[in-house]
Every structure is written in structure tokens, then in C-alpha cells.
């Protein structure tokens, strides 16, 4: 069984994408179920809002008892940068899952670039915005912008020059491949 498994999910047949089934943009946020259908370090988004077939926002409140966080680090907790990437990935997954009628899943194929500007701490709410572009050959390019809602008012945030940039957490460009969810080799 592992012989065929070890490759990344290869599409069994050409993936034909029909018209997106999304009709109206959701005005209320949709919660994310707790049970994961694939291995993930944690549930990295709490809720999302689909704005169109190409745009989605999501948020994640960072909690002290989130998985893995107790070790990152014992004396001072920082939401790992790779978990910010995970939050973006799960956001894109939510959009793709809702967009297409056939069960399509995504596979991260590349991190073209990522920059982390401000650390995300316990109590912060990470706000994500993704712009997705479908590229031929069933690939998706995503530009994501992530900001932090601080958990307390900080009077120093308006210091000249620091205010505008200080609440950005990260910016990244990711690439994904779309595969049929039920394709087995």
C-alpha cells in the first residue's frame, strides 16, 4: 500500500473544474468544525467569510492551550510562523471546499515567499485575507495578508512610522495543487 502512497496525491484523471457553485457572498462568518479530515497541527482558523470565488477572510484567536504552543516556548509563547502559514492554508481549503461541487482538496506545493513582520502572541486574533488566482493545470496561487488584533490597547502603537506597519503579522504567496478528494491510486 505504501508503494503507491509515498508520492504526493497524483490526480487519477484530468481534473475538470465546473462553474463555481458559490452564488452569494456570505455575510455572516462560517464557523470551522473541530474535527479535522486530514492531519493538521491544530485547528488554525476559527471562522471564515467567503467574499467571492476568489477571496476569503478568516480569523484565529490564539489560545494558550492550543496544540503545540506549550513548547514554543516554555517561558514566552509565540504562535509559530509555520502556524500562520497553516492558518492561511486552512483558509484556502475552506474556500476551495465551498466553491466546487465535486470534492476537491488542496495540496501545498510551494511557499514562494513569506515574511513575518510582527509576532503573534496568546490572546491575539490573527486576521487573514486571501486572494486566490486559478492557474491552468489545476493550480492555485494565493496572496495572503495577515494582521493582528491586539488583545489590549497599546498607547504606543501610534508612534510615528511604527503604527501603520506594526499590526501586520505576515504576508505570503503560496501555491497549491487541486486534487480530487476521492481519487485513490
Amino acid at each position, binding site marked *: 500500500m505504501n508503494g503507491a502512497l509515498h508520492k*504526493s496525491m497524483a490526480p487519477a484523471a484530468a481534473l475538470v473544474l465546473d462553474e463555481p457553485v458559490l452564488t452569494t457572498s456570505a455575510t455572516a462568518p462560517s464557523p470551522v468544525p473541530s474535527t479535522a479530515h486530514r492531519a493538521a497541527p491544530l485547528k488554525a482558523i476559527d471562522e471564515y467569510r467567503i467574499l467571492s470565488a476568489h477571496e476569503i477572510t478568516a480569523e484565529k484567536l490564539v489560545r494558550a492551550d492550543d496544540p503545540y504552543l506549550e513548547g514554543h516556548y516554555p517561558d514566552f509563547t509565540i504562535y*509559530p*510562523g*509555520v502556524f500562520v502559514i497553516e492558518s492561511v492554508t486552512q483558509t484556502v481549503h475552506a474556500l476551495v471546499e465551498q466553491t466546487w461541487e465535486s470534492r476537491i482538496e488542496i495540496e501545498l506545493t510551494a511557499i514562494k515567499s513569506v515574511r513575518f513582520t*510582527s509576532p503573534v502572541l496568546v490572546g491575539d486574533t490573527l486576521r487573514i485575507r486571501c486572494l486566490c488566482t486559478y492557474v491552468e493545470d489545476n493550480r492555485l496561487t494565493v496572496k495572503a495578508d495577515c494582521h493582528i488584533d491586539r488583545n489590549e490597547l497599546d498607547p504606543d502603537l501610534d508612534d510615528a512610522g511604527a503604527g501603520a*506597519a506594526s499590526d501586520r503579522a505576515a504576508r505570503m504567496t503560496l501555491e497549491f495543487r487541486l486534487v480530487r478528494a476521492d481519487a485513490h491510486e
Partner: protein
Amino acid sequence: MSDHAHIRSVLPHRHPILLVDQIEEIEHFDHIVTVKAVTGSEPCYAGMAETTDPRRFAYPRSLMVESFGQSGALLWLESIRREGRELTGSLIFAAAKNVTFHRAAYPGDTLRHVAHIEQIVGDNAFLRGQTLVDGELAADYGSVIAVVRQTESLDGRQAPVASQLAAIPRQHTMEEQ
């Protein structure tokens, strides 16, 4: 030197996010080879819906990247420790470029990371490298930047990579409060 206890003395990460098991090879300030076993008992496999699809157990790519990053950080911190130096502050993943994924890893596999230091500038390390599974390329890391920033400045809500050129955090002791 290559054992897990030594790794814990160098890296600040702890269970369950210490994702480097052993060092296979190290050339200070140049490269390191590390291994990390992927096991079904990790937190990332908790709370999953029942499934017959084995592909759903692919090791999360975010954790693969973290494991690689820690390998690079281990090389950096171990190298400067050998010179009798130490960095104070928190280790932070600052940036990456051209990271590509080629194959998945599953419970029972071993990740082998090869991380190179390209350059060190103050409290900033520029790395590159690869992750292999069964001798095959699983991930390639074009460039990864890891930095150490003062914890107290994080407490004060100053971004560790503040937008002012003049505000580069200099190495200073924790007593300067």
C-alpha cells in the same frame, strides 16, 4: 553530542514542538544533517475523523518546515556556542523564499534535513537546505531567515522587525528595562 538531550540544551523548543530527534552530521557554521521520525502518536494526528484514505495522514507540511527550521537554528546556535557565545532572546522564523514540496511523509517515515548556513549577520541567520524521505527530495528550501530578537521588546509590543531602520534591536542584557 548528537543525542536528544544535547539538542534540548541548545534549542529552546520543547515537547511537543521540538521536532529534531538527532544530529547525524555537523560542520559548524557550514551544514548540519538531522533526523526526525514521523509517528502516528503526534498531536497532529489527534481528533481526526475516521477515514480509510491513507493520504490524509500525510505529515503536515507546516510541521516539516518547522522541523527543518529548527535544524538550521540548531546548527547556528551550536556553532556560536562552540565559540563561547550565546544569543539572548527568542528564536523567530522571519522569512522564507522558494520553498517547494515534492513528496509527502507518513507515520513510519524519517525526515532527514540537510541545512546550510549561507550567511550570518548579527542576530540573523540565512539558511538553505532540503528535506529527504527515503533518499527522495520531499522539500527544498531556497532561503530561510531565522532571527533572534529580545523577548522584552516583544512584551512591549514592538515588532521584532520594526519599520524603522534605526530601531534595530541591539544585543543588550535583560536588566536594561
